[in-house]
Structure formats: C-alpha cells, structure tokens
C-alpha cells in the first residue's frame, strides 16, 4: 500500500495526556447524555474525518479493535492514518467491528447490521462514531435515561433519519444494542443504548 503523506501527520502532540483528556470528555458525555464535549487539542486527521472523530479513534482504537469505515471515510489517507497512528485492523464485516466510523454525507447502514453483543456479553457490540453536520441547529431531541436528571436536549443537524427510527428498537433489545458517539468538527456528544430519544415538537 502506498503511504499517503497525510497519514503520518496530525496525531496527538502528547499521546499520553491528550488521549486521557479526550477519554474523560467521551466518558463524561457517555455518562451524561446531552452533554457536548469539546476536543481542544490540535488533532488533524485527513479530511473528511473530523477532529473529534479522529481524536476518539486515536484514544480508543488499537490492534485489539477491528474498525469499520463508512464509504465516505474509506479513503487511502484515512485508512493509512488509522493504520499508522492506531495500528487497528480494518474490517468490512460490520458485525466484527468494535468501532464504526461514519459520515453524514454517505448512507449509514442499519444500526441492526452492526454487532449487537449477546445477552451474556452485551458489551461486545459496536460503538458507532457518526460525523454529523453540527450538534446544534437541527431538530430538537429530548433525551431521558441514566445520566440525565429529568430530560436533556440535543439538536444534532444531519443525523441520518433511520437512526432515530431504529433507536427505539435498539433500546428494546437492551442490554444488547449499539452505542453512538456523535461528532461534528471539534465537538462530540454520546448516546448510550440506555438513552430514550423522542423528537420534541417545535
């Protein structure tokens, strides 16, 4: 494989402290759905992978995690970046993916087509990282569930339509199901499988 020059640059300046920082942001967002986290350090993954999505990739992916890349992200630059910085294997099988990265500009496969975990091991499910247009300015979603005192609001713009439709089903098969991290540029938010989402009337 030819090495793309963008594959070698744009990682963490300080891998140890930067990945700790990004992880705490992701952890807080996952523990408190509706919270929007910010990736402040200068991570520059090859376009169109966003900074926050790239930072999540650097923080959580390695040789133990098969990664699925959506069609829009399956570029030599990004696969090279993933290989060089994380050493993570690529997979075409969605059910084998520990992490799946997708972009709003390409169609996202059904949530049910990814690994759902088993009843005995519900943790063996895919975590989807979906790049949306923005985390605000879209239709307002009302979130309920663990991590939320009463309700929380999130208005992601460019979230694929079927994600909302399939989300109820994702919740019904609890404890199985996928977890989602939404990213937009430097910002991110998380939707763990326990989160109940309803579309708030404007």
């Amino acid at each position: 494989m030819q090495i793309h020059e963008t594959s070698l640059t744009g990682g963490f300046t300080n891998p140890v402290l930067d990945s700790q920082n990004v992880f705490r942001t992701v952890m807080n967002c996952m523990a408190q759905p509706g919270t929007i986290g910010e990736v402040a350090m200068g991570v520059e993954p090859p376009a169109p992978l966003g900074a926050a999505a790239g930072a999540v990739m650097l923080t959580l992916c390695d040789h133990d995690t098969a990664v699925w890349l959506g069609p829009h992200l399956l570029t030599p630059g990004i696969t090279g970046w993933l290989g060089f910085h994380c050493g993570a294997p690529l997979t075409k099988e969605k059910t084998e993916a520990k992490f799946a990265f997708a972009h709003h500009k390409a169609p996202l496969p059904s949530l049910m087509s990814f690994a759902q975990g088993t009843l005995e091991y519900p943790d063996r499910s895919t975590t989807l990282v979906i790049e949306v247009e923005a985390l605000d300015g879209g239709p307002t979603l009302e979130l309920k569930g663990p991590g939320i005192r009463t309700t929380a609001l999130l208005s992601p713009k460019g979230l694929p339509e079927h994600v909302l439709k399939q989300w109820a089903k994702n919740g019904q098969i609890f404890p199985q199901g996928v977890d989602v991290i939404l990213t937009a540029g430097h910002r991110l938010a998380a939707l763990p499988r326990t989160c109940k989402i309803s579309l708030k009337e404007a």
Partner: protein
Amino acid sequence: MSELAAYNFAYLDEQTKRMIRRAILKAIAIPGYQVPFASREMPMPYGWGTGGVQVTASIIGPDDVLKVIDQGADDTTNAVSIRAFFQKVAEVAVTTHTGEATIIQTRHRIPEETLKEGQVLVYQVPIPEPLRFLEPRETETRKMHALEEYGLMHVKLYEDIARHGRIATTYAYPVKVHGRYVMDPSPTPKFDNPKMHRSEALQLFGAGREKRIYAVPPHTDVVSLDFEDHPFEIQTFDKPCALCGANHVYLDEIVLDDGGKRMFVCSDTDFCETRRAEGHTGEMLAPSQEAAE
C-alpha cells in the same frame, strides 16, 4: 520524576489504558453489567484495590484532585499507600476533603458528604458477582444475568427472614440498577446503599482479581432488593458520634479498654474532622476540652 522516567504517566501503559477505557465506556452504557477486562499485575497484591487502582489510573489526568478512603478513613494503610502511589506516578494533587476531590477512590464506604456532579467515585471490589456465593459457576451466573433470573437472590434474602426474622445481610447488600441488572455494591455497609440511588456522581467499580469493571451513571435508579412486608432498611445507631456528635452517619466501634468500654465514632474521618473544626463536639470530646480550658 523526570530522572526516573521509568513509568508511564499513571503507571499503566497506553494499550492497557485504552483497553480499560473501552471497558469503562461499555460499563457506563450498560449500567450494572460486569464488563470483563484484562486486569494487569499491579505493584500491590490482589485484594489491596488493584481493580480500583487500574480504573483510577485509566481516568486520572494532571488536573484531577484525588481522594482515597479505606473504610471511610483517609489515614489507614490502604488509603495512604494508594494516595502516595498516584502522587508518585501521576504527580496528581491529593486531598482528604470530599468536596474538593474530582476522583474519590474508595474501599467499602461512600462519603457522608453528598457527592456532586462531575465527581467520580471509584470502588475497589473484591467479588463483583452478587450471585457468586449462591452459584459458583461463572457460566451459570452469566446466564442468570442474561435471562434476568434473580429468583435465587430473593430466596437467599427470604431465608434470612425465615432464620433471623429480618434480612440479615448488612454489607454488600444486593441492588438492582436501572431496573435490570442485580449488582454488588462492593462490601459497603447497606447504610450507604441509598446514597447510590440517583447520585449526581459517576460511580465506577473495579475488581482486579476477578477482572471485571462495572458502572452506575449519574441519576440512575439503584434499588436495594427487598420484600413488600420486609422493606429495605439501613442500620441505625443509638447514640451520635462520640467525637463530633453527628447523627444519621455510619459509626465505627472503637474498643477503649479491656473492661468493656467502647465508643462509636464516624467512619468518615473527613466528615468528622470537618464537623469538629466547625465546633461540634461529641460526648467523649467535650469533657477533655473543658478540662483543657
């Protein structure tokens, strides 16, 4: 530290941290479910909080303020050595004040002071499986969790009532998290169970020897198992703390002599010290102060 550049920040190597971090995220997404993880050898024996230490090491950053308690106390061996460990390997600020801490690692207690949003409580867990003493086979307990088959646990509590007239379990009292998983809150006294319910803080549990991580996100239902005619109740104490006079706190018994004299004091040393600094005195403290004056 720089001349001793032998250890990575927070001791663990980065691959281990990533593995633990992935387990923590899944644990948060499935409240009360025990996520298996590849627990590492730590520079302390199993049973000394290696699970909690690995969880803390994977989440801690240079801006954190760490508090470590052992049975509520900041000054017992386990707490002192773990605090010193993180001062050495992560150069992190430490405190004994519950309110100032961003991460609190605990063995067998939840602080009396109500935890706030943004704080993380890390429990050291010896046996994470609440069903283990009822069913020794992991394959079976895993299936029981999968099928939400918790009848055996209720039988155990019922047998308590049949034998003792009440539920005799006083610590590691089983809870149901988010209406789904029965979870061992670690050997905290059942006095602390109500504090877990809809706590503002994130609660993470690490079991090093048993290689399990589980979590309770903030604002999550944590309900102690009971029966309609035998509702869950916490321990009560006849007298207030002998040093600070606090009521409705968990007290430790301290034997004073071989003639049967004893006193009961707060198990949470920070809570007790803060109250005494505020001028509260209990019955054992008051006379000596008067004598000094």
